[in-house]
C-alpha cells in the first residue's frame, strides 16, 4: 500500500499519526515540567483529531465519543489539573534532571525501529489505512516507558504514565477501531481517579521531602539517623 494511492483524507490520518509520535519524542526530550504538560495536552488534541478522522473515514460513530472523551480528559482536564498542582506547589520553573538527553533520544529512535519490526506481521493481516499506525502506537507506549524510567520528578513520571495510556488508546483505535464503550468509559474513569490520587501523592511527597524528586523515596529514613 503506497501513500500515493490513498485519498487525501487517509494521507492526513497518517500525517497526524506521525505528529502524535513526534509529540512523544518531544515529551521525552523536554526537561521543563510546565512545557512537558503543555506538550502532553497537544498530544491529547492530536490524538482526538486522529480519532475523529478515523471515525469519518470508517463511518464508525462510537469513535466520535472516544475522541470527545480523549479531548476532555487528556487534552483539557488532566493538563489543567497538573498545571494547577504545579502552580500550587510553586514548581513553575522546575526542571527535571535529564542525564544524557541525546542518548535517550537515540534510544527512542531504536525503540521505534524495534516496534516496527514487531508490528510488521500484524500489519500484514489487514489492509486498512490504520494498520501502519499500530507500529507507531506501540512505539508511543515504549517511548513513554523510556520517559518513565529516565525521569526523577514525580510530575514528569505521571505525565509519562498518562502518555503511555495515550499510546494504548492509539493502539486500540488503529488496530480494532476502538474498544467497546464499557471498557473505554472504565479506562476514562480510571485515568480520572488516578490523576486525582496522583495529585494527593504529590502533596505528600512534597511535604515529606520538600521536593518532587522520587529518588528521595528510595532511601530509608532509619539509615539517616
Amino acid at each position: 500500500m503506497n501513500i500515493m494511492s490513498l485519498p487525501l483524507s487517509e494521507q492526513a490520518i497518517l500525517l497526524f499519526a506521525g505528529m502524535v509520535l513526534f509529540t512523544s519524542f518531544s515529551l521525552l526530550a523536554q526537561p521543563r515540567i510546565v512545557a512537558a504538560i503543555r506538550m502532553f495536552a497537544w498530544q491529547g488534541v492530536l490524538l482526538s483529531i486522529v480519532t475523529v478522522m478515523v471515525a469519518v473515514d470508517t463511518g464508525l460513530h462510537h469513535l466520535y465519543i472516544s475522541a470527545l472523551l480523549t479531548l476532555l480528559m487528556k487534552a483539557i482536564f488532566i493538563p489543567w489539573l497538573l498545571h494547577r498542582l504545579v502552580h500550587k506547589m510553586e514548581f513553575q520553573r522546575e526542571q527535571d534532571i535529564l542525564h544524557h538527553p541525546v542518548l535517550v533520544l537515540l534510544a527512542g529512535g531504536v525503540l521505534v525501529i524495534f516496534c516496527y519490526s514487531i508490528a510488521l506481521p500484524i500489519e500484514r493481516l489487514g489492509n486498512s489505512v490504520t494498520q501502519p499506525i499500530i507500529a507507531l502506537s506501540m512505539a508511543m507506549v515504549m517511548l513513554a516507558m523510556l520517559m518513565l524510567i529516565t525521569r526523577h520528578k514525580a510530575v514528569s513520571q505521571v505525565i509519562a504514565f498518562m502518555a503511555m495510556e495515550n499510546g494504548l488508546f492509539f493502539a486500540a483505535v488503529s488496530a480494532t477501531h476502538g474498544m467497546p464503550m464499557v471498557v473505554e468509559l472504565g479506562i476514562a474513569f480510571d485515568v480520572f481517579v488516578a490523576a486525582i490520587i496522583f495529585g494527593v501523592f504529590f502533596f505528600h511527597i512534597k511535604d515529606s521531602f520538600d521536593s518532587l524528586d522520587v529518588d528521595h523515596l528510595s532511601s530509608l529514613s532509619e539509615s539517616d539517623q
Partner: protein
Amino acid sequence: MLDLIDFKGWLLVIIQTWMFVFLAPLLVGWLTWLKCHLQNRRAPSLLQPYRNLWRLFHKDVLLPKHASLIFRMNPYIVAGVMLIAASIIPLFVVRMPSSATADVIVLVGFFALAKFFQSLAAMDIGTAFGGMGASREMTVSALAEPAMLMSVFTLAMVAHSTNLSTVVETLIQHGLVLRPSLLFAFAGLVLVAIAETGRIPVDNPSTHLELTMIHEAMVLEYSGRMLALIEWSSMTKLMIYGVLICNVFFPWGIALHHDFYSMFIGFIAIASKLMLLGVFLVVAETVLAKMRLFRVPIFLSLAFTLSLLGLLSYIILEVGS
C-alpha cells in the same frame, strides 16, 4: 540522462549561478529590513549589504604577521566552493546540465570543505578567538551534518534519487501528497539550516560578543576584500539553504522547461517563496532568544531525531508492507 554538451543549458547555468550570488546580499538585506521593522527600529535600506561589500572591497587588506598561505587562500577557496555549490541548486529552473554533475551529498561535502578551510585559517594565526571559534564551529557542524544527511536521505528515498533537480521534478509530478516523512525532513532541515548559517538561536550574526560568537570569531582577523569575500559567501550559504528548503519542500512554480515564460514564472515563484521564508525566519528570531552554547547539541539532536523520524515514517507509514 541529461545532455552534458548543451550550450543553451550551460548559459542558463551561468546566468542562474550569478543571479544566485548577486541576489544573496538582497536576501540578507530583506531579513535585516524585516527584523528592524518588527523590533520598532529604523531599518537600513535593502541595498545596505551591497554597500558594505562595496566598501570592504575598496579597503586595504591587512594581514597578520604570521599568516601562512592557508590564511591567504581561505577566502578564495570558501567563495569558490560556495559559487560551485550555488551552481548545482535549481533556483528557478530544473534540468540544468550542472545538476547532473553533482548531487545533494556532494553539496554537503562542499559545505564541509568550506568549513574545513575556514577552521584551519582561523587556527592558522594562533589567536585565542580563532581557535575557540574553530572548535565551536566544528562542534556544531559535526552534529549538524548527520542530521542534514538524514533529512537528505529521506528526500532521496521519497524521490528515488539524490540528484536535486530530479528530486524537485519528481515531487512536482507527485502533486499534493501529505507525506509525514517530508514534514519531519523539512523541520529537521530548517533546524540544521539555522545552526549552519549561524542565525538565532544558535549564533547571532549581528554581534561580536566574545563569549558567544561562533562564526564571527573565526573571521576576526580578516579585513578588506578578504573579509568581503567571506561575508559574501556566508550570505550565499544562507541563500543556498533558503532556496534548498523552498524548492525541495514547496517545489510549485519552478520552471520545468527552458522557455522564457515558465522561467519568468519560476523566478517570481522563488522570489515570493524566499520573501515568505524570510518573514517566518525573522519572526522566529524575534520571538526566540539566543540559547546557551551548551544547549546547541540538544538543539541539533532534536534536528537529528526529526530527520530520523522522517526516514522511519517513510518506511513505516508510506511504503507499506
